[in-house]
């Protein structure tokens, strides 16, 4: 997409942040440190970071607001030359919702549940003294609603927040943020809770409004792909510090920090040109950050100096800064994508004449009395991976659970395993079947019993399905841990001593311990950071290939399917609308829904 990347400095800076340091109170552990940035009129700055990087904390600090337990310890924040941190309470109150406004992550929790939305919208105009009369404010409210493409009739304005969809709630929050024509707006992951199609609409709205009002914007996100088409400049945050700041093109084409480059390589690629590569390890939380360069433990470029001392801010070119001891060497590597491998094209081809392992025929499923799956027909081929793609509420997880025997409600139709009809509930299926079909859950924080050691967790399937001696059990456990690239020393640990990525590996190991032929993976990466997600996908793809597993891969992210599967089924509203080979479906989609999903999925 073409855009005029106006060099920094030429235009007036609406926001200037210098040397911001935010710590946990009272422990004094730093959440953010040495954060300095500028945003200019009409410019969107994308602030990108993984979990626990401290990005949200930076966002609210721009309004001089911190939650209980955190405080701004040092630094300067200026909006139009006014120092926000030293303002009087009254001045601060006036500027909040006036010159600077905030769009929260989760509007469903951020709108007052007991007030009608019309009143909440009017309120922000009233307290900031917008217009001369109530009629002025009501007119402005109607205008705002139109701008975010919502109706402004009395009936809609009389609704309570819970009577709106997630996308509508987020639009109301955006309308509020633009109400008093702010100078700068902070958007804190406003689309994280939304489906891609809704997200695409919200992003369009944000882009149009910032342009037409000339508003500066800080767009906070964990997803580099989301800001790729929105932000003029991007700031990459890692463990509380900005590691690289530059224009969109500078970052995407000539990133000078190893983390920026690696982060880019871990974004799933819907075009299927390049392979997905994760970053080892995980992002450290405040209080657990290593000394020296915090990225050093995960970095391929690491040298002794990195472990000793945090690198200073270096200027690559005007406006493009980086913090890495070896930024020159990193930057000297040609184009970012050339450093990553191209995808193995043979992945997406289906072998001829394969046997069906799981066949689903004319299946309807109910949740209580509501029909949630309609007339499902699909099949999983032996030694192949089938991706099941759909947005929330599409029925993809229900279908996966029906196959796994975890849907204790009414199911009509036939689900067969190797030609034999499966009982509805897992407990009614023969032991050999329960062993052959293994299910990996979405949330690794919920799927491992926090009261048990990893050893106890792994021995559960071994105890149920095999008659093993103590030493055989231990050998098997060490064996499956090795398969998922974990150390056997973890056996005596408890789940909360492990990172999210490690937990998900343990969950996979538990499934593998049963020696299954079919592996069902239900959104197994949706709780993980992108860099960790990529590593898990790599692992699953190689396990599936090497062990000859038949795999059902459930995901909401269409961009992931090329990295792992040969076939894909697209679901919406409880129906499969498209089914076929991955390349065929993605390159020449037939169903309207698939086309829409493809065009709405953000790409880098």
């Amino acid at each position, binding site marked *: 997409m073409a855009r005029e990347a106006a060099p920094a400095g030429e235009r007036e800076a609406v926001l200037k942040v210098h040397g911001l340091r935010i710590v946990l109170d009272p422990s004094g552990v730093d959440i953010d440190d040495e954060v300095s940035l500028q945003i200019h009129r009409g410019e969107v700055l994308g602030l990108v970071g993984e979990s626990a990087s401290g990005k949200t904390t930076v966002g609210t600090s721009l309004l001089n607001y911190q*939650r209980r337990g955190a405080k701004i310890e040092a630094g300067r924040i200026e909006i139009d030359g006014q120092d926000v941190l030293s303002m009087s309470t009254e001045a601060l109150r006036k500027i909040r919702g006036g010159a600077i*406004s905030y769009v929260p992550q989760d509007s469903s929790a951020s709108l007052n549940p007991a007030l009608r939305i019309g009143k909440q919208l009017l309120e922000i105009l009233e307290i900031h003294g917008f217009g001369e009369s109530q009629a002025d404010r009501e007119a402005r409210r109607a205008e705002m609603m139109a701008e975010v493409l919502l109706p402004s009739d009395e009936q809609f304005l009389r609704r309570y927040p819970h009577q709106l969809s997630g996308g509508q709630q987020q639009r109301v929050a955006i309308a509020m943020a633009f109400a008093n024509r702010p100078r700068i707006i902070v958007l804190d992951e406003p689309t994280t809770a939304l489906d891609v199609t809704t997200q695409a609409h919200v992003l369009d709205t944000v882009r149009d409004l910032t342009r037409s009002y000339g508003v500066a914007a800080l767009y906070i996100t964990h997803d580099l792909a989301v800001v790729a088409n929105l932000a003029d400049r991007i700031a990459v945050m890692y463990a509380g510090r900005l590691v690289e700041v530059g224009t969109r093109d500078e970052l995407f084409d000539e990133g000078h920090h190893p983390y920026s480059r690696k982060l880019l390589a871990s974004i799933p690629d819907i075009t299927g040109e390049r392979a997905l590569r994760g970053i080892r390890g995980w992002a450290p939380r405040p209080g657990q950050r290593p000394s020296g360069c915090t990225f050093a433990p995960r970095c391929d470029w690491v040298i002794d100096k990195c472990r000793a001392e945090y690198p200073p801010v270096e200027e690559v070119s005007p406006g493009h800064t980086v913090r890495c001891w070896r930024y020159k060497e990193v930057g000297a590597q040609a184009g970012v994508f050339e450093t990553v491998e191209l995808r193995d094209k043979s992945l997406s081809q289906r072998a001829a004449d394969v046997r069906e392992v799981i066949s689903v025929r004319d299946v309807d499923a109910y949740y209580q009395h509501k029909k949630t799956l309609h007339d499902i027909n699909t099949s999983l081929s032996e030694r192949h991976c089938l991706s099941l793609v759909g947005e929330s509420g599409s029925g993809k997880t229900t279908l996966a659970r029906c196959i796994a025997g975890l849907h204790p409600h009414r199911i009509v139709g036939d689900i067969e395993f190797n030609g034999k009809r499966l009982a509805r509930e897992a407990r009614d299926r023969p032991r050999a079947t329960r062993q052959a079909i293994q299910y990996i859950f979405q949330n690794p924080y919920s799927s491992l019993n926090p009261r048990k050691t990893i050893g106890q967790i792994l021995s559960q399937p071994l105890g149920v399905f095999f008659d093993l001696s103590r030493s055989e059990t231990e050998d098997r456990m060490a064996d499956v841990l090795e398969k998922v690239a974990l150390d056997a020393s973890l056996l005596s640990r408890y789940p909360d001593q492990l990172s999210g990525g490690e937990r998900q590996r343990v969950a996979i190991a538990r499934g593998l311990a049963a020696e299954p032929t079919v592996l069902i993976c239900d959104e197994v990466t949706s709780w993980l950071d992108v860099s960790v997600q990529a590593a898990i996908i790599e692992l699953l793809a190689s396990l599936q290939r090497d062990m000859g597993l038949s795999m059902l891969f459930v995901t909401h992210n269409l961009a992931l399917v090329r990295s792992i599967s040969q076939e894909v089924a697209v679901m919406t509203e409880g129906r499969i609308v498209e089914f076929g080979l991955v390349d065929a479906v993605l390159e020449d989609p037939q169903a309207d829904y698939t086309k829409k999903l493809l065009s709405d999925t953000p790409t880098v």
Partner: protein
Amino acid sequence: MPPLLKLILIRVGLGLLTLFLVSVVVFAATQALPGDTARAILGKEAADKARYEALRKQLGLDRPIHEQYIEWLGGVVTGDMGDSLVQDEPVTKLLGRRVVNTFTLVFVAAVLSVPISLLLGSLTALKRDTLFDTSITVGSLSLAALPEFVIGIALILFFATQVLKGAMPAVSRVDPGLPIYQQLKLFILPAVTLTLAVAPYILRILRASTIEVLESEYVMMARLKGLPERLVLNRHALPNALAPALQVTALNLAWLAGGVVVVEYLFAFPGIGSLLVDSVANRDMPMVQAICLIIAAVYVLANLTADILTILVSPRLRTGLR
């Protein structure tokens, strides 16, 4: 049918079901257990088989149990709860004035405890972790632990017999011949006892729900929109904190109906609580049945009222989308 009405009717139906089951429990406990009423009246004389059987027949205890129940329930519904076994008069007549006394007492206690605890509950939440908050919290925690009779005796020792001798009457023998407003002094100590026993619970739930609301995203958002603190609290925080406190308040007021038993006995207050204690001691079954039914019905009704009020004040429930 409008969803709101349907929702309320379901609650009312469930309340009636519970009331019905309550009556079954009361009936079963007093008339179907092995030590039946006849045995209870006769005591040691029950060994006389002939007298025992005669009395059973007289009381209708020889008929099938469901027949007895239906007849008894019919009586209850029409206001005929039988005659007291101790004083040969209808139960309803003996109860009349005492019910008025007890409800007056409970009413005074409610009027005292609700405003105080709501005020202190929200104030402690707003001044969280200050000395004020800590002392009120620890004080209410201690009061919540104390049995009613401990509070009552402490008040008697302080205001009536030892420290401020005679400042308040130690017993509250309300004279049935005089109107209640002329004897309000007799209500003070029992009512304060009940207030101190019940207020800590309401205070603590309101404090907790206020704190939760103050930490909610929408209160943070209200501040980030630049609302003055006064509006943040009055419009966004406190109204949302009250709804969860409603249930607990109603339950505690209903609890007063049981709490009166010990307090009335302690102060010799002529209400249904002290009458229950006497009737249990004298094995006056019809009276015990009647009082237990009244107290349980008060609980069920208070609960039902709280349910309906909660529906009416919560948009999410009121608009019927659940």
